[in-house]
């Protein structure tokens, strides 16, 4: 075997590798490694930001100033400067997809000098720098070269970043090849991989088997039981870590009967067998208490009351709702055993209080469309946030009006106001209070069943080192931190 090549089994093939559009893990696999961000954060303590392409930054009200690193060049040799930052952010906001939501409070970007850039936000926000830790910087020349369509076509299958790995080739249906950028400004470990193959292996079982069989060096989204077993075999060790996800989260439709009834939802929340979920994660999970995990900076969850299975309470709530013997339909995105299992648990839990749940497993788009068009009462998904610090991003896509994942069409004006206000508050303590209120609004509405908060479990072969879990991305691939132990 060729020790300089690292093979990563990815759960899917990117639809695009445009950093302005990248959305899912297997797209980030490329963008995160090929491009750099202005700042980084400490995976072990997300509240700590680290310099990256920017060496310094500071906030003054709505204005943020970033000082850029010297001597950084793109893979094509062109230098990195403030114009690139401006081009990146302008383009991102214009396109409005991907991670744009993280920085959608930016009003304007100004180039102060080649190494200084100033960003104006619409309202004061304390989270801009932390959110920029997710935004990949592209070259303004590339944008200019393809300005007809904002470079949408070009960026979709080409990449020119400043990052630790350079894009080499995309073999459709099979893999994307990256090579190490030895001119990278950052520091590689002792024995980094010169070549990375990002293989598309859509099937989780195949990823597990390939990892175990040595075809792959690392794999994402390995089914948990397989991951635990593989991590325990010789030649492998287990990496475990927190993550931001409530996984699976059951979204209840607030518009469609019977789930439009709050007591009914309450009955479901109370009836749900959380311990079954924890058991299915083989104990590597805890029960969620709200939208924000306990370890998140400023999380209100620590003191929050535990959500417990309580059949009597459930029956009482059901009685209050007057919806005994109701029937509901639940849409489950296909391909995730945990989701399917959560639905099964919901079904059997609901059955205990006389409620019938029909399950329909369908591709993601179909499933989410079903609930959005009121053809289904519930939908199952992870409840997450890519931002390492900005708790409002837990809410924006999931609980605010028009949020993509707000499939249950949850709406509460108080929450809308709180989320708008939170970033402007500079005092962490004060923010924590507001956050607690926001979380309680969601919990009290019984809009979602957080079935579990599993840990991320990644089996890593002993011949590899350096893998760390990014708590916000569930499974991530920071190839530049990985090294060979052989």
């Amino acid at each position, binding site marked *: 075997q060729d020790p300089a090549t690292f093979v990563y089994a990815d759960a899917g093939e990117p639809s695009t590798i445009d950093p302005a559009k990248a959305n899912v893990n297997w797209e980030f696999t490329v963008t995160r490694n090929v491009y750099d961000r202005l700042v980084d954060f400490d995976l072990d303590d997300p509240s700590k930001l680290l310099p990256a392409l920017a060496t310094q930054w500071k906030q003054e009200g709505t204005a943020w100033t970033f000082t850029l690193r010297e001597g950084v060049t793109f893979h094509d040799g062109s230098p990195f400067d403030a114009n690139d930052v401006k081009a990146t952010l302008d383009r991102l906001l214009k396109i409005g997809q991907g991670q744009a939501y993280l920085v959608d409070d930016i009003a304007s970007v100004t180039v102060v000098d080649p190494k200084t850039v100033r960003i104006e936000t619409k309202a004061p926000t304390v989270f801009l720098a932390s959110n920029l830790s997710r935004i990949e910087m592209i070259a303004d020349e590339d944008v200019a070269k393809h300005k007809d369509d904002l470079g949408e076509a070009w960026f979709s299958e080409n990449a020119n970043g400043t990052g630790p790995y350079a894009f080499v080739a995309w073999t459709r249906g099979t893999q994307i090849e990256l090579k190490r950028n030895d001119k990278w400004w950052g520091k590689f470990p002792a024995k980094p991989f010169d070549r990375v193959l990002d293989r598309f292996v859509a099937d989780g*079982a195949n990823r597990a*088997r390939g990892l175990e069989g040595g075809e792959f060096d690392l794999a994402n989204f390995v089914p948990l039981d397989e991951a635990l*077993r593989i991590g325990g075999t010789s030649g492998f060790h287990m990496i475990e870590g927190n993550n931001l996800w409530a996984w699976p989260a059951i979204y209840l439709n607030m518009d469609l009967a019977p789930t439009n009834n709050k007591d009914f939802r309450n009955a479901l929340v109370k009836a749900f067998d959380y311990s*079954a979920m924890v*058991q*299915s994660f083989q104990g590597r999970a805890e029960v969620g208490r709200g939208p924000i995990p306990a370890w998140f900076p400023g999380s209100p969850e620590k003191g929050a009351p535990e959500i417990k299975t309580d059949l009597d309470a459930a029956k009482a709530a059901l009685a209050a709702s007057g919806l005994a013997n109701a029937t509901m339909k639940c849409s489950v995105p296909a391909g995730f055993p945990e989701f399917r299992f959560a*639905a*099964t*648990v919901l079904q059997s839990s609901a059955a205990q209080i006389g409620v019938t749940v029909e399950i*329909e497993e369908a591709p993601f788009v179909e499933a989410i469309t079903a609930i959005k068009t009121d053809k289904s009462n519930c939908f199952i998904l992870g409840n997450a946030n890519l931002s390492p610090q900005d708790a409002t991003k837990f809410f924006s896509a999931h609980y605010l009006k028009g949020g993509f994942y707000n499939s249950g069409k949850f709406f509460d004006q108080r929450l809308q106001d709180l989320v708008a206000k939170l970033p402007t508050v500079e005092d962490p303590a004060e923010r924590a209070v507001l956050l607690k209120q926001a979380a309680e609004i969601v919990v009290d509405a019984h809009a979602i069943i957080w079935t579990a908060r599993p840990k991320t479990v990644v089996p890593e072969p002993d011949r590899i080192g350096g893998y760390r879990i990014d708590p916000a991305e569930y499974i991530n691939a920071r190839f530049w931190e990985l090294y060979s132990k052989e």
Partner: protein
Amino acid sequence: MSVSTEFKRHRLARPKGILTPLALLVVVVLAAFTLLPGLIAPHDPVALAMADRLKPPSLAHWFGTDEGGRDIFSRVVYGTRYSLGVAVAIVFASALFGVVYGAVSGMARGWVDNLLMRIVDLFFGFPALVLALAVAASIGRGLDSVALSLAIIWWPGYARLVRGEVLRLRERPHVEAARALGVSDLTILRRHIIPFVAQEVNVRVTTDIGYALVAVTALSFLGLGANSPTPEWGLLIRDSRSYFGSAWWYLVFPGTMIMITATAFSLIGDALASRRGV
């Protein structure tokens, strides 16, 4: 006893051996599974029992348990109703429709026949799985949509078979003799053609049940068929995929079940075919 029948029986007896009785036994067992799953299955097929999660086969759980601690044997038993039931329904419906269609086409001849057969050609060219994808997409996932799409691609086979047989049979002297007698077309079809077609159709139906079972489970496997926690066999295999390395029994037993069932129907179809005397 005339020489010819004796001769045939003699030929039939040899190659079959114990396989055909064995196959019949399998079918009887499957029928029991379908009709009285409650009497046979030792456990509830859907209720979760997390304490027994992913246990290997044992005396308590012959086929082991799944990720919800459910008894796989019980699930397989209950699943017969779905997997085999749908397969049988598909084949019967297709056969029924195909027989009528083919008979009409064969008796009509001329442009009607031509048109009807062009339509059949069209269905023949249609890729099965794509149709299933499309149907599942349009009327929703579930065994009913699987049944519908498979029936749509299945019936033309019967229509063709029956039409061919009708065309062949209607030239046979005994049909000509009946026509000379003044027997009406409908009676000719019913009395002098269908009984001969029926033989072919019976063989085909029996063999097809096995194929249809494989097709149904395949579509479930692709996520177009039954939904969890329905213990449909293809779905069991689909679900088992995430536990492959940890729970071999989860994959092995439902798959074997499909194989045994389909093989049994094939064997019986074959026996029927050789009884027909080829």
